[in-house]
């Protein structure tokens, strides 16, 4: 280690220790990631440990690797600290090709003093040798994890040529005894933070399109009432507290209004309401249960559940097309919890079949239905903002866990919980 660097690391280390102590309480509620299965056509990539990383208490490389692995789109080659490369000129493309890599991601960390560190990294394909990515960031210690997700995003986008998802967040509800929490976390389940804590149930969190607010249902008034809460300030207000039950909020893509379910007609029906709580208008018309609305990404249609046919099925209705709802599920007698994919071509939903609850993908053009989960009690699916994964709640050995399934590969990731029950996951939008 050079003399210029030696004065830096102890200071950085001390700072990180401080922030780690503060984070220790949060860490207990964190989820952990376990990758199960994966695609057969995965992109083989070597993520070489960053030079100079060994003294960082929180390795960037490890997060980049677990991010890329959880998508099921990559197979990660074994690498060692000795593989570290500090410059593109040091890359032996032929040797990496022989080891099976199609691309190599490498880089270095150096001190800038004052607690800051400079991260430089590259991603090169090996045959033909082509530099796909070259980037440099100056970072404060508390930015290391955000940076790791950002680096994974850049690698994903440079190698696959499609929008990434690692800087997004998820919301979910935990229950431990009589304590309910609405929490948000990084999409890998780490860095959980509590948004709302209550002694009565909370359900159905819904992200505003800009990621700054959550709508949710809380039972703190002995009935379901919809609230909207600003995440940073904690300011919350009632969005809908009409006579009866108020539930199932979901934002329109432009963030100007929400679809909700009210019971003022004496049955559960879908309504539209402005984001400020005004302008309520009825959207669905049946004498049955209509619930679980979700907007199409262009904001022109809503898919919802209705048992108007005698069993819960999915219906799609245009916002400007009168009251006609088009039924889109025909197999099975229990199809619920629909949500549109970000490209609007698919609907993820839950089907009950033989006492098992499964997450399905409906392709709207072909009408084909495909199973993407594999446990007995899978519920509450939501798409990653790039559409490549679907997050859902499942149950194992009597405990609830979160899974993320790839939509284009058979891979799945378990976001294991360390305690309590975790339910109602909702994947947030791209970070602004």
């Amino acid at each position, binding site marked *: 280690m050079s003399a210029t660097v030696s004065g830096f690391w102890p200071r950085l280390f001390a700072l990180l220790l401080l922030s780690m102590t503060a984070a220790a309480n949060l860490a207990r509620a964190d989820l952990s990631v376990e990758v199960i299965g994966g695609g057969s056509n995965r992109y083989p990539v070597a993520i070489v440990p960053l030079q100079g990383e060994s003294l960082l208490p929180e390795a960037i490389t490890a997060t980049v690797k677990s991010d890329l692995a959880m998508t099921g789109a990559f197979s990660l080659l074994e690498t060692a600290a000795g593989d570290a490369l500090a410059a593109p000129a040091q890359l032996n493309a032929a040797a990496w090709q022989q080891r099976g890599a199609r691309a190599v991601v490498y880089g270095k960390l150096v001190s800038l003093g004052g607690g800051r560190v400079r991260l430089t990294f590259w991603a090169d394909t090996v045959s033909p040798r082509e530099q796909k990515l070259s*980037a440099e960031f100056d970072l404060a210690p508390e930015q290391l994890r955000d940076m790791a997700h950002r680096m994974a995003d*850049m690698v994903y986008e440079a190698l696959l040529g499609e929008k990434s998802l690692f800087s997004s967040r998820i919301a979910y509800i935990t229950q431990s005894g009589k304590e309910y929490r609405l929490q948000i976390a990084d999409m890998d389940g780490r860095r959980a933070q509590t948004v*709302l804590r209550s002694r009565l149930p909370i359900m159905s969190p819904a992200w505003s399109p800009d990621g700054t607010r959550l709508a949710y249902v809380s039972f*703190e008034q*002995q009935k379901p009432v919809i609230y909207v809460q600003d995440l940073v300030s904690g300011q919350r207000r009632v969005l809908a507290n009409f006579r009866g039950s108020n539930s199932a909020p979901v934002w329109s893509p432009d963030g100007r209004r929400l679809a909700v379910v009210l019971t003022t007609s004496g*049955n*559960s029906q879908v309504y539209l309401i402005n984001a400020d709580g005004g302008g309520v208008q009825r959207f669905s018309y049946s004498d049955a249960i209509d619930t679980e609305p979700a907007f199409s990404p262009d904001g022109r249609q809503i898919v919802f559940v209705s048992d108007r046919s005698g069993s819960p099925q999915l219906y799609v209705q245009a916002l400007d097309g009168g009251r006609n709802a088009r039924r889109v599920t025909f197999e099975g007698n229990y199809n619920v919890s629909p949500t549109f994919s970000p490209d609007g071509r698919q609907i993820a939903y839950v089907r009950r079949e033989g006492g098992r609850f499964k997450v399905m993908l409906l392709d709207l053009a072909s009408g084909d239905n495909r199973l993407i989960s594999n446990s007995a009690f899978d519920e509450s699916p939501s798409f990653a903002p790039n559409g490549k994964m679907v997050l859902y709640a499942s149950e194992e050995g009597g405990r609830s866990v979160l899974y993320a399934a790839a939509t284009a590969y058979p891979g799945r990731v378990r976001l294991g919980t360390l305690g309590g029950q975790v339910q*109602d996951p909702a994947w947030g939008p791209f970070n602004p």
Partner: protein
Amino acid sequence: MKQSPFIVAIAAALLAACASTPAPVVSNPPAATVPSTPSVATVDVTGSEPALQGSKVSAAQLAAAVKAAPDQRSAQALLNGHSVYFDFDQSVVKDDQRGVVEGNAAFLNRFSSKVLVQGNTDARGSREYNLALGQRRAESVKQSLEVLGVKPAQIEAVSFGKEKPRAEGDSEAANAENRRADFVYPQ
């Protein structure tokens, strides 16, 4: 060899936990920033469960006992712990559950009180669809109360869906215990 944009971003110095979005100081197009995850505020709401003590009177005797009770407080105590139970996937108030409805109707008619009727379901399936099924049960009880002369304005039908199971687990006994409507009176 194709060179992609070389991106340089610099962090604003050690900022508070509410993190910063570093501004790029040098960039060959386009500039990228490290997304910063802001800390969020935690809101605490306590709320409270109504106390639940078992009534000393059977469902069949409930209406007569409520009518004979010396005052509102003792009449209300008679109703504690009595719920209306439903068959699987049903929201019809069965004949053997009418005593509880009649007892509550007698109370509401005598004291002009208000009541929250909370519908509940067993534990399987979509939370929101279960909320709607619980609502259907609460509305069914509301209609039965109205038939017995209770004014609609006295009754609010709401649902807890599968969120407030009285019995844990997935046995048929637990499911039967959870398919119910509760009566909650203002304290």
